[in-house]
C-alpha cells in the first residue's frame, strides 16, 4: 500500500514536471503571474454566442476581482501573451475587459495574463443586460455568467476535499450551472443584506444560507482561506440557477447593507 502511494506521488511529480516543461515561455514583469488559458476563454465566448438566448440583449465581458486585501487593483495591465506576440487588452475603470478572437494566439496556446501574481486576483464572466438598475441583475445573465465562467476555466481549483463546498466546482463543465442550486459564487458591487427573486407577482427572498458563501451554515468559514472570495465574502451570493420555475427574465434584486 505504501509502495503504491509512493509510486502515485512520484507519477504525479513527474507529470507536473512534464506539464511545466510544455508550458510556453513568456517574459513578463511579474514572477508567477496569475494567468488564464486564452483558448478556454475563447471557448467561453463561443458558448456565450450559442447560449445567448438566455439573455438576448446582453453583452459579455470579463471581470478582475481582488482576492487578497493587499491586492492593488489600480493600474492593472493585461495582455494576451503568446511566445511570439503580446496583445495588450484595455481594462476599464470597473476592471472589466473584452476579449477578441485571434487565431494566431489560439495556435500558440496564449495566456491571458495581468501584471499581478498568482493568487492575488480572481476572475468572473460579466454578462449584463442593458437598462437594469445597478442593484438589479437578471437571472438569465447570471446563468450565462456561470456557464461561460465554467467553460472558460475562470474558477480557481484546489485538491478534492481541500475546501469542502468548493469541490463542487471541480468539473469544468457548464452543466454544473444547471443544478438546482449550484454553489457558483456571484459577487455584488457592495456588501449584501438580502437577495430577492422577482418574476411578475411572484417574489422570493433567498435564504441567508445563499449569502456569504453559505457562512451561516458553516461557523468555521473564516478558517477557509483558499476560497477565491476571501475578501469578497460580504458580497458573495448563490442563486438557484437550475430552478426552471424561474424564467431567464427573472429579476434578481440586491439589497445592500
Amino acid at each position: 500500500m505504501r509502495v503504491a502511494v509512493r509510486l502515485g506521488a512520484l507519477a504525479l511529480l513527474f507529470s507536473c514536471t512534464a506539464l511545466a516543461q510544455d508550458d510556453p515561455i513568456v517574459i513578463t514583469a511579474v514572477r508567477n503571474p496569475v494567468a488564464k488559458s486564452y483558448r478556454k476563454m475563447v471557448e467561453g465566448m463561443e458558448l456565450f454566442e450559442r447560449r445567448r438566448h438566455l439573455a438576448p440583449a446582453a453583452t459579455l465581458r470579463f471581470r478582475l476581482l481582488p482576492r487578497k486585501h493587499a491586492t492593488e487593483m489600480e493600474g492593472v495591465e493585461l495582455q494576451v501573451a503568446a511566445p511570439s506576440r503580446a496583445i495588450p487588452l484595455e481594462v476599464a475603470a470597473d476592471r472589466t475587459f473584452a476579449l477578441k478572437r485571434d487565431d494566431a494566439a489560439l495556435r500558440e496556446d496564449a495566456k491571458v495574463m495581468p501584471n499581478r501574481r498568482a493568487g492575488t486576483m480572481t476572475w468572473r464572466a460579466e454578462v449584463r443586460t442593458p437598462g437594469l438598475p445597478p442593484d438589479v441583475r437578471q437571472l438569465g445573465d447570471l446563468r450565462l455568467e456561470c456557464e461561460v465562467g465554467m467553460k472558460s476555466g475562470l474558477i480557481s481549483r484546489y485538491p478534492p476535499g481541500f475546501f469542502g463546498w468548493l469541490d463542487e466546482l471541480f468539473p469544468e463543465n457548464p452543466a454544473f450551472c444547471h443544478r438546482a442550486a449550484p454553489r457558483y459564487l456571484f459577487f455584488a458591487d457592495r456588501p449584501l443584506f438580502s437577495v430577492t427573486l422577482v418574476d411578475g407577482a411572484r417574489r422570493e427572498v433567498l435564504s441567508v444560507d445563499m449569502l456569504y458563501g453559505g457562512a451561516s451554515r458553516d461557523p468555521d468559514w473564516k478558517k477557509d482561506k483558499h476560497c477565491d472570495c476571501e475578501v469578497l465574502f460580504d458580497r458573495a451570493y448563490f442563486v438557484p440557477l437550475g430552478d426552471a420555475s424561474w424564467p431567464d427574465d427573472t429579476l434578481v434584486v440586491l439589497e445592500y447593507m
Partner: protein
Amino acid sequence: MKAILAACVLLAGCSVLQPSPPVPQKPALSAAAAERSLSIGQSTKADVLAALGKGVVVDFESGYEVWVYREKPPASGSELRAELVLLFGPSGILAKTRVR
C-alpha cells in the same frame, strides 16, 4: 502503540476544534413576532441577546455583523424554516431586519 497514541491525540484535538454547540434560542417567539420586538436604530446586541438568545453570527471585517435565527421546521422532515436575519452596524446598533 505510537500510532494509537497519535490517533488519540488527533481525535482529542479534533474534538477541541469542533465549534461549540449554539446556545438554545428562546423558542416561544415566531420570527415575525421576534422582529416586531426589536427597534431598528435603537436595539443593541445586548438587547437582542436578552430578547432572543444567541443566534448564528456571521461577522465581517467591516465591523458589520449578521445574526440569524431560525424557527423550528413546521413539520418533521421539512426543510422550510422561517428565518429572522438581523444586521448590526459597526456601532453595534440594529441597522436592518428581515423575515423569510
